[in-house]
Every structure is written in C-alpha cells, then in structure tokens.
C-alpha cells in the first residue's frame, strides 16, 4: 500500500442489484490519489464516473475490492463513521442541488463548519475569508435563487474547501454551466490547487474540462482504459 495515498482503490467492482437486471458499473478499478493531485476522471455517460467518485468519497461501499482512505478500509467503517469521515476529510461539489436554498452563500459555506461544531464567530470569519479568496465576497448575502448557476457552483466550491479537507471530489461540476462559465470554475479550482495544495478529483465528459486535468483517467464500461499525466 502507498503510505502517501489519501485514497486508494484496489480491484474495485460495483454491481447495482436493485433493478430488474443487475448492472455492473465498475469492473475491477485500481487507483491511488496522492496529495496535491488535480485529477480528472473522464469517460462517456454510463462509464462509471459517478460510481467511482462515490466510492472514493465514502458515500458508498464496493461490491468487491477495497477502498482505503488514509489507510483505513472504508468497508470497516459504520455509516456513522463514514459520515464523520466525509464531514472532516472530504469536500464535495455536486452537479446539482448543492446549496441549501433557504441559506445565503455565506451561511451555506458556514454550514459545514456548523456541523463540525465550530463557534459562530469563527465560522463566520472563515467562511467570509474563503468567499473573499475565491473572489465572490459580494455574493455572501445572496440566496441561491439570486445567483447564476456559475455563481452557485463557485459557492459550492467555497463550501467544499472551507474546512480544509484532505480531498475535494467534484462530480461533473460544470455539467450545468455554459463553457465559459465552466472554464472559469476550473480556473478557480486550479488556483486553489496551485496556491493552497488542495487535492481535487473531478469527473467530466466535456473535452474542454478534461484537458485541464494534470492527470487523466479514462473510464470506459467500468474499467480504466488509459491514464495520462501532464
């Protein structure tokens, strides 16, 4: 096992057995994510990108094989322990439904810190700081419905990094954005990666986004078909 790894998947398979026909979404995937990576998981629709990210993010457990987070076998953790792990170690940016609609951008970013039990003053200070850093301080008091899709995703990125997680996972973060806005979101993520060493793993099937990854994992039919590093 790689002692440096944040997360490591070994011969992971995932079979969804809840429909009429069992679907094999992953067929033996192994990969290691190390600190400082800026990795994209690419592949056509249905290739298993979301499934893989869910496993790396302790949202789900594999049917076969193992996933280790900081050396800890996720299969050994209870639901509660996995929730705790996500809360303290992993940031998420989803494609949609990211923000709590009744909360302002600032409060959404604060929410993770609230769950962590950070005192109110410090919550506020840290959340504001992150929003300023990401250049969206002026959105602080806006509710999600008052923001554009791109602005919402930026706030989601702010929320994902505010507690300085070990790993940020983003499942098609630009899928609902037009390409210029999508590119600007990637600029933001890249800047965080470069300046603060935040580790990112994101998925996409958009060539413009994929080319931004420093490490590319091509997924097809639940297998890693090829890997590139730049």
């Amino acid at each position, binding site marked *: 096992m790689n002692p440096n790894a944040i997360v490591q998947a070994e011969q992971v398979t995932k079979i969804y057995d809840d429909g009429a026909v069992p679907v094999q979404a992953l067929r033996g995937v192994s990969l290691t994510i190390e600190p400082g990576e800026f990795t994209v998981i690419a592949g056509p629709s249905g290739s298993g990108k*979301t499934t893989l990210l*869910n496993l790396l*993010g302790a*949202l*789900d457990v594999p049917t076969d094989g193992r996933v280790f987070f900081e050396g800890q076998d996720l299969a050994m953790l209870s*639901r*509660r322990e996995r*929730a*705790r*792990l*996500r*809360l*303290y170690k*992993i940031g*998420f940016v*989803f494609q*949609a*439904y*990211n923000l*709590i*609609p*009744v*909360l302002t951008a600032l*409060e959404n970013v604060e*929410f*993770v810190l*609230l*769950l962590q*039990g950070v*005192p*109110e003053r410090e919550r506020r200070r840290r959340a504001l700081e992150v929003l300023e850093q990401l250049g969206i301080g002026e959105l602080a008091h806006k509710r999600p419905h008052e923001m554009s899709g791109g602005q919402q995703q930026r706030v989601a990125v702010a929320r994902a990094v505010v507690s300085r997680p070990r790993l940020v996972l983003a499942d098609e973060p630009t899928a609902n954005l037009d390409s210029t806005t999508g590119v600007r979101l990637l600029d933001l993520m890249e800047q965080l990666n470069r300046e603060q060493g935040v580790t990112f793993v994101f998925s996409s099937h958009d060539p413009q986004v994929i080319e931004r990854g420093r490490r590319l994992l091509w997924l097809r039919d639940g297998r890693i078909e090829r890997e590139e590093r730049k």
Partner: protein
Amino acid sequence: MRFRSVIGLARVAWRNLWRNRRRTLIVLSSVVVGVFVLVLFDTLNTGMVEQMLDNQLRLHIGHVQIHRRGYHANPVVERFFRNADALRQQVAAAPEVRAVAPRVLVHGLLSSAYNNGGVQLVGVAPEAESLVTFIAEQLVAGRYLAAEDPEVLIGERLARKLEVRLGDRVVAMAARPDGQIGSEVFRVVGLFRTVSADFDRTMAFIPIDRARAMLGLPPDAAHELVVLLDDVRQADALKTRLQAGLPDTLEVLTYRDVVPLLVMQRDLYAEMMYLIYLIIGVALIFGIINAMLMAVMERLPEFGVLRALGMSEGRLFLLVSLESLLIGLLGTAIGWALSLPVYAYLARYGLDLAVFSEALAAFGVGSVIYPRLTLRIVWNAWLTIPLVAWLGALYPAWRALHVEPIEAMRAV
C-alpha cells in the same frame, strides 16, 4: 451534540418553515386554534369544578373545622369542647377567615304524629350560621330560625315523610352525655331543598341554645366550629397555623380531611379534561404529520446532499423535528396570546350558561361560570402541544434520515 450547533440548526429549521408559507400557516393556525380552545376549555372547566366543590362545601362543611380531638373519628355527643365563644373569636381574628359558626351535633329521632325518622340534629347560632353556609338561602317555604325559640328547619323530603307542614310540631329525641334521653318539642318554621336529596332527608336545624339545653350541655359547649375562608386554597395554611396555636385537645381539619370523597370527585372531573387534550392532540397530530411528510418528501435530494456532506443522522433528525417543534411552540405562544384577553373578560364577567342552568344546578353550580387559570393549565398547554408537534414529526423525520445520499441525488 453541542448547544451552539442546535441553535444553528434551529435557525435553519426556522427558515425552512417559511419555504412553503401557506402550508406552514395552515398547520400553525390549527395549533393556535387547538391551544386557544384548550386554554379556555380547561380554565372554564377548572373554574366550574372548583365552584362545584365550593358550593358543596358552603352547603354545610365549610373550609376548616375545629373539634375536640377524636370527635371526627368517632362523633359521639360527649366529645364536646368548652369556651366555644372565646375560641370562635380567636379563630375569627385570623385575617383569611371570613366567618366562623359554632354547632352542637347529635344523632337523634324526629317524630310527628304520624311517622318518625332518624336525623342529624344540628344546633346552630342562626346569625353566624347564615354567614358561613347557604342553608338560609335554600328555604322553599317558611322562614329561617330565630335565635331563641324552639323551632326547627327540615328538608322538604323529611317533611313529606313525617307528613308535617309549616307550623306543625315535631318531637326530637337524642341520647345525652349523662346517659339520659333528652327530648323537646319543636315547631317546623322552614323547609329547605338543596341539591342533595340525602341532605334533605336527614338534616334538622335547631337553635344551638335549645340543643344545649336538651342535651344538658354547658352554655359554652360546642361539637364543632365551622370556618369559612376568603379563599379555599388557604385552608391548609390556616390549619397548620391554628393547630400550632390551639391546645392539643382540639383538632383542626380541612375540607380535605372531612370530605375526601368530594375532593376526589373534583379531581376526577378535572382529569376528564385530559380527554379533551387527547382529542385535540389527535386532531392536530394528523395535520402535522401530513404537512411535515410533504415538506420532507419534496426535499429528499437536499437531504441527500446534507448527508453526503457528512451531516449525521441525529442532526438531520433534529433538523426536521425542530421544524415541527418550532411550529408547536410558535402556535402555542400565539394561542395563549389570543386566549388570555378572552380569559380575562370571562374571569371578570363570567360565562352565562343559562341554557344549561338546570343541569348545572344538579351539579351544585350556578349558571354563570368563571374560568380559573392554574399553573397546571399553563404547564399542560405548553408541554402537550409542542410535544404533539414533535411527535407528529417523528415519522417524517425518520423518513428523512433513511435517505441514501447517492439515491436521493440520482433521483433528479
């Protein structure tokens, strides 16, 4: 769970409430109406039940009684005490005491030319007695006792049994402390009718001095001092104080000691009110379950995100139940705010239930009811309704925390 995160979640819950303003307002108003009805119902019921007891006490028992020790356990004629007048003045000096009346009591036989019956002979000081009890106001024929003459008041029913009318003579007989039989002739001057048929069949009131003479008791003897207070709730305190100041040969009792059954009956009536709580609680809970379930179901993807972010099941449960609890608390506050002015009005002017006055009279209550607010009611309403709201959230909250994050977010 740290307190500050509860506050933070409560803030989020509060905002969530107003996402669907209409639905929240509907549930909220049902809670407000529930609390409003409960408070008025319970205060009126409590007022009525206390009035009932008080009326029963004012018929004969009074609020506090003083006897020679042992008389209450075994009321025999030789257990009288002396210095009744001095004692009466001493008791009357207590600030919460409204009136005090002495009595001489003995079981005896009342005979007319045609029939006879066992009675409780009550020797009363007419003036003092009329200040303590209602008996003077229960007359349906004739007049009340004068102080001196050999006169008797009996119930209508007893009169019918003895086949006597106003002005007829009856003979009273009773065992004296000296072992002889005392007897005297009395003229029937008044007939009474109370809410109690039993009372009307067995009680006979005569002047206290005549009773003493007939029984051969000293002129300052009595079996009982009956005390009426400004407020029945002061009875226990007065008992303790009097008992401490009086010689040990005397025993002070409150109405609780004298008629525990009546007190139990009152408590039973008061407890029937919990049936109303139950009905209102059940009526409210279905509306709450329904509204909370809708609120939860339309937010499942959002809950999925929250779980994905690492929110624990406990906190998600708390978030949903706080939403319901907040409706419960807010509704209770508004319900109280609305009911208090109505309560204040009724407490002042009373609720006139003239339509039901006959039924009420049978319970020993006048037709005007005054509500009574007690700490118990405050507690009950503040506890039950928010609790009901919280219970109504249990099932919806349970649904929310069984959200699988990846499922919920897939169901776009």
